[in-house]
């Protein structure tokens, strides 16, 4: 009886975790893969894995960084498996960079400003695509998910100094890409 009640409470808690963080996990995975279907699948896998391990989550880090850590590991596993399964079709559903940059909201800009902004967003996408896996993860967690260095360190399992170094290199690459294309 007590066990059943505890389980019900845990399920209720987890429902609110899903409601609070699903969108963020999905957004991070979407930015990492540029593939809506893959991002959805990995988000489901991430939440499923989190649900299975929810009772063992001790709250040493925030729920978000814990979920991000699971998502990052699932993504790594996905690419590793894909590389191993070389006989499989290698085509992905990732959209190209121009299509990804089309999503920029128009805001209150002139057509020319909008065009310029889209172009720059495409350059950022291009730079992000050419980053190493770690640099890309750190960059997206910092500038898309707006996590601070400590949270990124917790989510990636790297030290804060390493995170900062990766972030600095990623920024240099984005800066170079924007400078070259202007």
């Amino acid at each position, binding site marked *: 009886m007590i066990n059943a009640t505890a389980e019900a409470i845990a399920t209720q808690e987890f429902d609110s975790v899903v409601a609070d963080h699903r*969108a963020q996990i*999905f957004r991070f995975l*979407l930015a990492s893969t540029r593939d809506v279907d893959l991002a959805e699948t990995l988000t489901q896998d991430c939440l499923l894995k989190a649900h299975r391990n929810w009772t063992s989550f001790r709250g040493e880090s925030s729920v978000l960084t814990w979920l991000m850590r699971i998502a990052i590991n699932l993504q790594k596993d996905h690419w590793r498996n894909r590389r191993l399964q070389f006989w499989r079709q290698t085509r992905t559903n990732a959209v190209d960079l121009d299509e990804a940059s089309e*999503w920029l*909201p128009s805001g209150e800009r002139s057509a020319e400003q909008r065009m310029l*902004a889209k172009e720059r967003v495409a*350059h*950022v996408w291009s730079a992000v695509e050419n980053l190493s896996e770690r640099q890309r993860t750190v960059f997206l967690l910092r*500038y898309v998910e707006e996590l601070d260095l400590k949270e990124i360190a917790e989510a990636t399992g790297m030290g804060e100094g390493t995170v900062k170094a990766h972030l600095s290199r990623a920024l240099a690459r984005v800066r170079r890409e924007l400078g070259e294309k202007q």
Partner: protein
Amino acid sequence: MNRRDEDPKLVRGNDGLELEPELREAIGNFKSSVDAWSDNAMSRPREVIEPARTNWVRITRWALGCAVFIGTVSGGVYENQRQQGIAKAEAARFADQQRELAAERAKEEADLMAKVDSDIAREVPSALEPMASLMDENQGTGN
């Protein structure tokens, strides 16, 4: 003298990394585009597509069906071959038996005939003994 001192437009973030306004704007726009794309993808109606997984039930059924079919056919063929083999062996055994029987009969007949001959030869009636001695003499002279 650091870069911030060189360029007053550089903005240091709370991570200690400096971003010039253009870069900050470009990254801000990048985030906005990811947000918009993600929101759109999250709110789109989801298509329920049957996952392209292996239909093990169907494959198992087919495999079992094939196994039963092959088993039945090969079992029938094997049984037929076995029956033919038994029939051949039976026929060969019967033929051997017949041959042995015929040989035995022939031998028995030959023995019987030989016995009759010898009995006839030995038991000459006393009344015919002079003729028998004559025959012996003729045989002795070569006539």
